């Protein structure tokens, strides 16, 4: 009998603590598969954010550093400048990355830090109970936009990878979604490219992944996926935004 599908070595045996239907777990698995496939588990260092995925260490079977809220790209910079041969990635939510940590993100990109950023856009703050994130859609109801987000008072959602396209040191930018098997495969391919860009020394790479937060959206997982497809994906165009000149 041959094993054709098994848990990646880069994942631990711990059960995910995430809410039912949460997509953090799927994305963790994709990252673990890629790290196994590239055989870089022993040289990979993950930087955990503050947010629902703060306990990356519970799930990833390699070295992890937990950073202050939003500061993961600065922490990753410090690590990577010391350990230039290691693979360093951050895993950050949209509050962590696009709100409190936007300066650290943009300047890590501007410096062309040779690191990878995995950016989870679930259009809200998950951990603190579903408040507005910078990526929350207009009219979307959250606990801090109870009448729907109004750009006149709360601003409008912005496009993170697009902000970084003109920077010399940026090697790869992509936006993907996690709503169906086809898009999951594409997400994995983009993540794989992002890690490859780092391993080839081609600079900063970022993959934004459109995700769901059923509990805070107040929907069951299935309805959440539908809402992602009907509202979030139409707003945030999917695809590779800046490409290296190789294929993985």
């Amino acid at each position, binding site marked *: 009998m041959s094993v054709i599908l098994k848990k990646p070595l880069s994942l631990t045996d711990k059960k995910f603590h995430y809410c039912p239907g949460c997509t953090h777990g799927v994305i963790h698995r994709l990252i673990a598969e890629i790290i196994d496939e590239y055989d870089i*588990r022993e040289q990979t260092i993950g930087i955990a954010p503050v947010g629902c995925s703060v306990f990356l260490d519970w799930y990833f079977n390699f070295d992890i*550093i937990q950073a202050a809220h939003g*500061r993961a790209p*600065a922490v990753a910079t410090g690590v990577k*400048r010391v350990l230039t041969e290691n693979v360093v990635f951050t895993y950050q939510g949209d509050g962590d990355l696009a709100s409190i940590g936007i300066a650290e993100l943009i300047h890590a990109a501007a410096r062309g830090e040779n690191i990878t950023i995995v950016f989870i856009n679930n259009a809200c703050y998950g951990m603190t109970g579903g408040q507005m994130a910078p990526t929350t859609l207009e009219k979307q109801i959250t606990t801090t936009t109870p009448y729907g987000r109004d750009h006149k008072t709360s601003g409008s959602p912005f496009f993170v990878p697009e902000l970084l396209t003109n920077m010399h040191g940026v090697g790869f930018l992509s936006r993907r979604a996690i709503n169906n098997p086809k898009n999951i495969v594409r997400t994995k391919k983009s993540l794989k490219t992002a890690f490859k860009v780092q391993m080839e020394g081609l600079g900063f790479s970022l993959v934004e992944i459109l995700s769901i937060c059923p509990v805070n959206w107040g929907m069951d997982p299935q309805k959440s996926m539908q809402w992602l497809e009907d509202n979030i994906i139409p707003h945030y165009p999917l695809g590779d935004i800046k490409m290296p000149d190789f294929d993985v």
Partner: protein
Amino acid sequence: MSKKLLKGNEAIGEAAIKANCRYYFGYPITPQNEIPEFFAKEFPRVGGVFIQAESEIAAINMVYGAAAAGARVMTSSSSPGISLKMEGISYIAAAELPCVIANIMRGGPGLGGIQPAQSDYFQATKGGGHGDYRMIVFSPASVQELYNLTKKAFYLADYYRIPVMILGDGFLGQMMESVEMDGQNDTCEPIPKPWAITGCRGREKQYINTLYLVPEELAELNDRLQEKYRQIKNSEQAYEEYYMEDADFVLVSFGIAARICKEAVDLARDKGIRAGLIRPITLWPFPEKAFADLTRAKNILNVEMNAGQMVEDVKLAVSCKIPVHFYGCTGGLLPSSKEIVNRIEMLGGTPK
């Protein structure tokens, strides 16, 4: 023997290189700009990494990352910038990471001024950021001492896995003095860091964390930190005594203000007053040992370039058994030795 004429800020850089620090992350602010400029110039020659960060917040988090990866690393700033670093310093203390932070103080609060001051004593010695943590805080009073203590800071940071702050002021950073650069290599040797995050090749995976959702686990971290702080209190108190053998009027002062106090002690002695000086070199741990048996002292005058932030530590050190007075100036103004002697006389320091 190799002597070099150095600005205080440059002496910090020279000492860091001597102590095998090869990573510096910082953001410009007066009066410490010579420090980042020194590293920008000198690090490429020795294979070091200098980054002008986008903010003090980013800089201290780069320090956090580099320290977690096992490097000797430092940052520097001046008062308003140090306030921004406080979040990161609290995380560094919680994660028990070693690093050196230089604060070349200027007057506050707010944007304050660019003139020298000592008004970050509370912030440096009482924690500064959130949570029950401490840093070792050195207060040098000459460029030579700045050089020596910076080297020592890297060693103690590694030894105790603790952030160490060099608390200088704008005068010390800017003034030039001749510095003996050899002779203290003993404090430079590397300390193994098996806890560092380097990738899990050949070992179990490791984790650097500051979040503990189980109260007992967070209490355990705090107990461990408090035990470490107790050890440091026992072993690392440092101070200088000046004419203390027979002093009945004791000045207490740190850093540049203490130099002025030495002059004041000399002037007072010329008048026949038995004045002396205790100069804390470590502000945390506060050198309580220096105050353990001040049997002769009738009065203590605390002299600082702030509104009296060290007074309470001095009062505690003498259990309020000796009156503790205060003379200080703020805003970047300097206390004068003459005025200090006036105060001594006013307070009853009389010739014997």
